[in-house]
């Protein structure tokens, strides 16, 4: 459950314990008509279904009933303006089924887009106003002098 090197397991030896796993995992947007107790994840290709189950149960305390995953090939795409072709990294796409009475709804993170833009505009307007007032204050005692003079 880690990309680091571990001694191989021989039958009869004590069970291998993995400390400090270094696998990443990210939640992906759900597919259309995906049941509420199924969550989609993107993980590194080295991770097995068992790893994914242990990861979620032990680190995130999420009950897991079933894990199905497959390796997705990274997209081939052309670099804009340069023209050469590059390949994105492959990843593992996992559908994790929780018990049917356990549900999760993917939150809408960027719904308040308008509000954010408003905030930006207000901040910009405020700084513009302040700088203009400063400019006026500086030129109060010298009317008729061009704006670039006091630079």
């Amino acid at each position, binding site marked *: 459950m880690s990309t680091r090197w571990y001694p191989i397991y021989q039958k009869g030896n004590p069970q291998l314990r993995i400390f400090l796993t270094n696998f990443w995992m990210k939640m992906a947007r759900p597919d259309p008509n995906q049941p509420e107790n199924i969550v989609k994840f993107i993980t590194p290709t080295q991770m097995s279904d068992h790893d994914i189950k242990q990861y979620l149960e032990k680190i*995130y305390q999420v009950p897991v009933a079933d894990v199905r995953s497959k390796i997705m090939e990274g997209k081939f795409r052309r670099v804009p303006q340069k023209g050469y072709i590059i390949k994105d990294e492959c990843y593992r796409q996992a559908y994790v089924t929780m018990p*049917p009475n356990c549900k999760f709804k993917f939150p809408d993170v960027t719904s308040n887009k308008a509000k954010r833009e408003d905030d930006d505009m207000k901040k910009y307007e405020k700084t513009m106003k302040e700088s203009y007032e400063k400019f006026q204050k500086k030129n109060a005692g010298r009317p008729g002098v061009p704006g670039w003079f006091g630079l």
Partner: protein
Amino acid sequence: MIIKFSRILGVVRNQLSGIRPSVRGYAVETLAGSLPSAERKTSSGVSATTTKPTKDLGPAKGLLAFFDSKDNWEVNEVRVGRSWRKDELRIKSNSDLHKLWYVLLKERNMLLTMLDEFNANVESFPSPERIDKVHESMVNLEEVVRERNKAYYLLETGETGERPGQLALNLLGMQFFFKTAEHVVPPKHNNHWFKTRRLGCDRREVAQFRLYHNEKIWLEKLRARRKLTRHVMKLYQKFPNIDEEALQAEFPEVNLEKVKRFKGAQGHYLFKSG
């Protein structure tokens, strides 16, 4: 005779089960019918063996750790501190480091999820440098843990406990380094490994190649040495009273006594006399 009779009984039972529900099925049906509709929906999918109505676990709260706190969804900048330094991590206990690792791991997963989500919605991700900071902290933490591991192994076994490596010759007669791995089969019986690795070469076949290859490497080294010499020569030309000890310490390979007498090392100016 007895076997035949039991078979007939079994066939009759199976056929009858199609017509009227069995005792078990009947009991389940009545229980389900007595419960309210919402309850029945949840209890139907869990398992047929348990007749107890299962508790609704509600939303999986652990999965919310994959998302940032709601306050940070709308802001343009998230104010955060710096990453963990090695000196700070060295004074922490092992259990503290273990806890911190999982905090960082969860944080990184959260940031990666949020980055993907913001990108999918064509939005700017607030404070993307958080990912680098978490990564740096994780690298530092891992190094500190490795230091402790090495110290422990050196004390106990006299070895570092790190993964060992080895130098070997490939088919072209060039040296390469590889990290050794454990195998279940001992090396003298593991023919497969040697076949796939393709170690060793025919010296006579690769002699010509090695000659040219070594010449190339030698020329590269020569060029580098000449470049340094030329640089020192120019320094002499520019600063005739240069501190030679410092210069020798900076360029230990260059023979200063020789370079000083080069024509290029003489300045084309005159000192003021008197």
